[in-house]
């Protein structure tokens, strides 16, 4: 935020209390932390199921569709977040109704995504002199967030997390074992739609922090890392949420001291952590003591018909 450059160099050192005081000295930073935290929590929780259901690309596409919605909203003088929500939730409902048929539709999803970006480009041009607006939506604008937006983000964030908690067991069942879940009376299709709509809300929130283009950093990266470290779904969800929060806090903190965009830091931290996680836990089963025996067994399994 070049226009907010400080005259006195901000404190950074071993006195953590002073660092915290420094970080929370300005309202814009307080808002950024408040909104960032709730966005990260909901992105992390939902992200776990996004990765488990193989919907990473769909989530990415949703955010791009949101770009068209946000820029279109500005054109008709409505708040960008409203357009974002309307577009992503409608697209989410359609994707959810498609359910399993969404899988393997990379080409279709990709084309819709590209077209949405194109539409957004047109809307930006029509609404003249707003390159900053487009950049903000594409890459996030967490330092510009208002008190009102923080409140809205808080409500949306709490709603999405509560919704996932309510759906937790049947959603897990439907995700892991759709046919049995259906036979056991789980409303598989309804859950699929509900999940995508909730994801749409989470994506719309996350766009404020990391923008349309960098959404992977908050929704997919923490969950993907969590899934390398635990084979227990409940722990996976929690770990994913904690990681998303840590990435956001770390990104905001670094961005406060260095004159570079927060989106860059959050994505870098997410990417770095993912690389580290792959290196630290190359396989899920990471055999602790029975390594050899397990590998031999796997080999045997692979060779038997």
């Amino acid at each position, binding site marked *: 935020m070049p226009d907010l450059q400080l005259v006195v160099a901000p404190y950074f050192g071993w006195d953590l209390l002073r660092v915290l005081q420094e970080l929370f000295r300005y309202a814009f930073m307080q808002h950024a932390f408040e909104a960032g935290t709730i966005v990260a929590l909901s992105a992390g929780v939902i992200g776990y199921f996004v990765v488990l259901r193989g919907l990473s690309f769909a989530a990415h596409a949703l955010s791009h569709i949101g770009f068209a919605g946000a820029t279109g909203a500005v054109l008709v003088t409505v708040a960008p977040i409203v357009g974002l929500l309307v577009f992503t939730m409608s697209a989410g409902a359609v994707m959810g109704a498609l359910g399993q048929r969404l899988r393997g539709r990379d080409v279709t999803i990709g084309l819709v995504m590209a077209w949405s970006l194109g539409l957004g480009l047109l809307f930006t041009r029509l609404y003249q002199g707003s390159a900053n607006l487009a950049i903000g939506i594409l890459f996030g604008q967490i330092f510009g967030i208002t008190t009102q937006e923080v409140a809205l983000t808080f409500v949306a964030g709490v709603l999405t997390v509560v919704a996932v908690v309510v759906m937790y067991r049947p959603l897990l069942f439907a995700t892991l074992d759709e046919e049995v879940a259906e036979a056991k*009376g789980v409303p598989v299709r309804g859950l699929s739609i509900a999940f995508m709509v909730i994801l749409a809300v989470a994506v719309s929130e996350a766009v404020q922090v990391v923008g349309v283009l960098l959404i992977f950093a908050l929704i997919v990266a923490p969950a993907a890392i969590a899934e390398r470290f635990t084979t227990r779904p409940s722990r996976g969800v929690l770990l994913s949420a904690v990681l998303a929060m840590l990435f956001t806090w770390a990104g905001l903190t670094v961005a406060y001291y260095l004159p570079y965009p927060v989106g860059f830091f959050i994505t870098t931290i997410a990417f770095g952590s993912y690389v580290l996680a792959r290196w630290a836990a190359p396989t899920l089963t990471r055999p602790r003591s029975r390594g050899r025996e397990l590998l031999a067994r796997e080999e045997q399994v692979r060779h038997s018909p």
Partner: protein
Amino acid sequence: MAGSITPAIVAEGVAAAYGDQLIWRNASFTVNTGEFVAVLGPNGSGKSTLLRLLLGLQPPAAGNLLVLGEHPHRGNPEIGYVPQRRNIDRDLPVRGRDFVHLGIDGNRWGVALGNTAGNHRRVNQAITSVEAQAYAGRPIGRLSGGEQQRLLLAQALAGRPQMLLLDEPLASLDLRNQIVIAELVAELARANGLTVLLIAHDINPLLPIVDRVLYVAHGGLAIGKPAEVITTEQLSRLYDAPIEVLQDSHGHMFVVGLEAESAHHDA
């Protein structure tokens, strides 16, 4: 339990459709409580559809069907179901025992609160009953086909059902594992008084354990003891085509002349 007086399944003139196309009709049969029935027939003949009818996932196109004394309805807790084996992603970050746990409370809303110890015990019981203790804590995608099949069976048992519907649980297992799993199912069924319908391609691993065979072919169903149903005359009539049943010295049965039929019906 209602005991042996009430039959587990009663079908009267039942017809099944796939889309708007009838695949079999005029099916009237009874399966008794505690019976072990193998469901056989070519691909696409409607074996899985029969299970879908029993599960209440689709209604019969005609006729009257009763399962455990009730009309079929989705979410019947008395039925344990193992669908045709899916390929479980090798990297799925979920343990076998988590799969089993879903069989108890996977259809309840919210997160698990209270009675977690009781459910935990039930999960362990189910895992022990299929002798899967050694690998239930490992990611399910990394297990062998036979191990996965045991855990999916445990999932179905964890719900404490009265009836098991198993769709090709022996497919893609080697012959030794086919026999082991088939015997395990039979043993569990006997111990718990379960009625079992098991879809299979090959009757031979099941011959020592099945009570009766339900043959689905050419738009109709036939039920009876293996020696009654799997005969040259019966199958030729059912298929309306020349079929020959051969037996080797061990009593294994081989149905000859089905290849063209199954290719024709492949869905």
